[in-house]
């Protein structure tokens, strides 16, 4: 890190003034593009309806008088519904994230360390890996009809298990992909010396390999979580009441009395905050995990 930092410093000192101006200009412009919608959501969630339709009003206390009513309503009369959707999102996202990471890491490790040969298909490791990854790219629309029928037959409609299984299925290919590349980049010496010392394959995997793979695991976990947390199509299709998630709640705010922007804004902020906090805490892992994995293509 040290030498690298110095190198940047050197390069930056070479940068002409106009270069810096353009650089900061672009950065500030894009930060505005990204942040202003969030700001707008935040202010809208405390505006009176009339301030939303007769505006636009930008700055609280100057352009309009903020009110806490919408948040109060969300945690008051709507509390039961808000909590239920939020809890369901949390359970299905965390559940599927754990499963994806575990199953993905196992398969990734297998594909990285063993040699497979599926004689009947003539597939070796690369073919199997490609097959698994290619599942990620199947259009979900093709699963709509069979999933409704299958889940119905298995009574999985409107259950946590149903959502978790579906999301795990969608996340596994990506997890396998990242983890396999990550393990490929880890030297095998450590495991081998552990096994010479009498550790089993499984023990070596758990005690030696996994701790070294934290960045990859975290990257997989974040992507799996974000996918499951934000997923709309299958949540809408497979849940009715008990397992229904936040995106469905947000999408449902369109009604015959007009769109209640203030509730949508509040709900959106509620849905996005956990992810942003997670992103802030784990951001450095994302790049590191991906650099080892996806980057190699």
């Amino acid at each position, binding site marked *: 890190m040290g030498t690298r930092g110095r190198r940047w410093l050197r390069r930056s000192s070479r940068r002409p003034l106009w270069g810096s101006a353009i650089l900061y200009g672009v950065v500030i412009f894009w930060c505005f593009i990204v942040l202003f919608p969030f700001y707008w959501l935040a202010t809208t969630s405390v505006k009176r309806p009339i301030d939303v339709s007769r505006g636009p009003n930008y700055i609280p206390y100057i352009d309009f008088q903020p009110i806490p009513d919408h948040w109060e309503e969300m945690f008051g009369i709507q509390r039961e*519904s808000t909590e239920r959707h939020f809890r369901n999102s949390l359970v299905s996202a965390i559940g599927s994230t754990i499963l994806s990471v575990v199953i993905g890491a196992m398969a990734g490790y297998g594909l990285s360390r063993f040699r497979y040969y599926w004689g009947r298909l003539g597939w070796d490791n690369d073919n199997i890996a490609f097959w698994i990854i290619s599942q990620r790219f199947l259009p979900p629309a093709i699963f709509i009809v069979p999933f409704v029928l299958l*889940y119905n037959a298995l009574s999985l409609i409107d259950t946590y298990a149903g959502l978790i299984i579906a999301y795990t299925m969608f996340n596994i290919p990506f997890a396998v992909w990242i983890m396999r590349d990550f393990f490929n980049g880890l030297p095998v010496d450590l495991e081998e010396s552990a096994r010479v010392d009498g550790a089993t394959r499984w023990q070596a995997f758990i005690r030696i390999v996994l701790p070294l793979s934290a960045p990859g695991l975290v990257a997989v976990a974040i992507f799996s979580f974000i996918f499951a947390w934000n997923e709309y199509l299958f949540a809408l299709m497979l849940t*009715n009441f008990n397992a*229904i998630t936040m995106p469905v709640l947000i999408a449902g*705010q*369109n*009604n015959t*009395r007009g769109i*209640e922007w203030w509730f949508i804004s509040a709900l959106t902020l509620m849905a996005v905050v956990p992810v942003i906090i997670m992103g802030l805490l784990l951001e450095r892992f994302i790049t590191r995990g991906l650099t080892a994995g996806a980057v190699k293509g």
Partner: protein
Amino acid sequence: MTKLSLFVLLALLTVAIAAPAGAQDFSGQTVVVVTQTGSAIGGPVLDKGPIWEEATGGNIELQTFAFGELFEKIVTALSTGSGDYDVLIYAADWAGDIMAPGYVMEIPGATLNAIESDDVIPLYADRITTWGGVPYALPYDGDAHMLYYRKDLVDNEMYAADFEAQYGYALGEPATWTQYRDIAEFFNGMEVDTAGSMAPIYGALEAQRRNAQSYWVYLSRAAGYGKVPGNPCFFFSCDDMTPQVNNPGWVRALEEYIDIRNVGDPEMINYDVADTRTLMATGTAVLNLDWGDVGTISVDENVSLVKGAVGFGVLPGGDSYWDYEAGEWVMEENPAPFIAFGGWIISIAADSDVTEAALDFASFLASKDVVNELAVTGGTGINPSRFSQLADTAPWVAAGFDEESAADYLDAIQNTINHPNAVLDIRITGSAEYLSTLDAEIARALAGEISAQEALDNVAGLWNDITDRLGRDAQLEQYKAAVGYMGDM
């Protein structure tokens, strides 16, 4: 924590004991109600739910979806037998997909007595809430499309002379779509006084947004040109289910529906009813068609700038109509009000595990007292469906109408519902699909992608496909039953 739950338990017990005689005890039972999002229709469940909870010890949970998703959620949940929903509050028009397959339970006579069903207008009590003569739902809301106009302008002498000079007849409540357009054209862009300020006004305001129930507005127009007096079969011929949707009457209606944007708010192509009724109340247009809601919204001082300035009327008719059996235009005025949608109704899912409690809550919500209160309250989405609501202007005046407006409003509703030439919805299995294909194609015509004739030809083709897929004979039987077709008379 324990203390709190103990307290709650005690409180519940006390309430259960103190509950009025006759109220059943449903402690520990949870009734899941599903309906559309927002304060309209679903709002009263949240407002009135606690009263019922207190009386019975039961628990009400509300699940809502956007209107566009509601049908598919209800039907999927019911058809998979998930038992997730107990009480369904849904569009009467979906009866063919909800009542016909037996997804909902028959309403017992005792419940019908409890809600005083003899007070309910027969259109709702005997037709809209029943299937094959069996009641499967409780009436909750009454719905029919009506005409709204700015009477302070249309009935104003200031404009009468100009209008008559220009169009050759007197300005007043329009009786035909041609007059409706003339009035819209006359006022469009004119500076008029609205709540004390002078501003240009649009001629007409109609919902045209795709995927937002705008097809009801189009159907209201099509009724005037396509409904044949004395023949109840409007959407299909009752001989062989031939779709009438692309006959010259329907095409003319679509052309005029497209054209109205030229003398109205050009943004209307992206407005749904929610937008148009809010805008109508803020005085941006002279003419509008909608369900009864505009009436109550227009007298709500918090949102309305046109309180007391709105006139109510039966929908305009055609100045002529297409007789599809004879294959010719008949040059007669043809008022044919459209009982669009038929209102929201309440059913109990047959796979519910708390049917008793669900039924009890439903009958509470549909009871005369509750419904009558909701009907006069703006924003509940509940419109009159009972004689008692129409008999007396007093509650309407109490809710903010002036005496004259109240009488005018109730008249318009009664004249619509009781009109001999009124048109009922499709109301057969697959109605949602028939209407969504209509919606998609008229949206294309509105956007100028294809012509009105092409759009409706497409619809006719698609309707034939749907009918064949669902079984033509079965569909024909249902349609005849739905419109009360008695064979050749």
